[in-house]
């Protein structure tokens, strides 16, 4: 059998046969009947194939809409999760960073008062030099506090996400 068939091979083959009969002027009523029957069947076939395809196209469209809706929902849930993780991390980290920086600030203040202040009074003749140094220390502490908070936040977020992932793996 011919292994190189194309789609609608039988129908094309019938058409070729009929055309060759026309060319040879050997068309009988029987041939016309056969050809019109085949044509009728082809129309019925086309109708069914179109109907079936339309239905399955609709099925595919619905599936695509569903996927899109699910994607949108996942995106929304991701945003929600990120916000919750941020809030949770902020709550856990904020206090920790403030406590550390308050302790550091206190140590620096005491060190400044005990060690640096007497030295400044003895060696530097600039008014309010001690206060200036305290102001610099204050700014430094604030900068350090934000960096420390950022560092702890990233660490905490990683921890929360790992815990979430473990929990999700446990469910699946």
């Amino acid at each position, binding site marked *: 059998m011919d292994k190189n068939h194309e789609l*609608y091979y039988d129908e094309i083959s019938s058409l070729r046969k009929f055309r060759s009969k026309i060319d040879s002027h050997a068309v009988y009523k029987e041939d016309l009947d056969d050809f019109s029957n085949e044509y009728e069947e082809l129309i019925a076939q086309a109708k069914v*194939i179109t109907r079936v395809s339309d239905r399955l196209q609709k099925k595919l469209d619905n599936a695509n809409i569903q996927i899109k809706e699910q994607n949108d929902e996942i995106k929304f849930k991701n945003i929600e999760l990120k916000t919750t993780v941020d809030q949770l991390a902020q709550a856990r980290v904020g206090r920790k960073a403030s406590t550390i920086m308050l302790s550091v600030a206190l140590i620096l203040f005491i060190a400044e008062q005990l060690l640096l202040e007497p030295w400044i009074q003895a060696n530097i003749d600039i008014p309010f030099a001690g206060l200036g140094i305290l102001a610099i220390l204050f700014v430094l502490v604030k900068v350090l506090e934000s960096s420390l908070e950022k560092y702890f936040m990233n660490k905490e977020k990683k921890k929360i996400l790992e815990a979430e992932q473990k929990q999700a793996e446990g469910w699946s």
Partner: protein
Amino acid sequence: MEKIFIEPTRTTPLINFDPDEGLLEMKGRSSPENSIEFYQKILDNLEEYALSGGEQFTANIAFEYFNTSSSKCLFDVFKRMSRIEDSGKTITINWHYEEGDDDMMEAGEDYSDLLDLDFNFTEIEED
């Protein structure tokens, strides 16, 4: 006539044709690059079955989806089955569709009506 077994892929269905048992199974999704190339072997074997196959023939069909060119090939497959029936053999066609998949059920009804073949419709649970 030869046995045909084709593992399913993302775009082609599982095919199991056993001429000794008089059985054809087609299951899964069908949207191959070249549908006629994929179905040709089945069409040729069914043609041969009508001439020299056993007295009983059963087809179990369970599609999730098929594209337009596959729907034409399926029409040709059922046409061959119709020829098997015309040759005096007993033919059973089981058309399975997923629960609630009315589109797929109606697609089976369309083929059944057009070719005047009896289909047994069975709803199956989703995987």
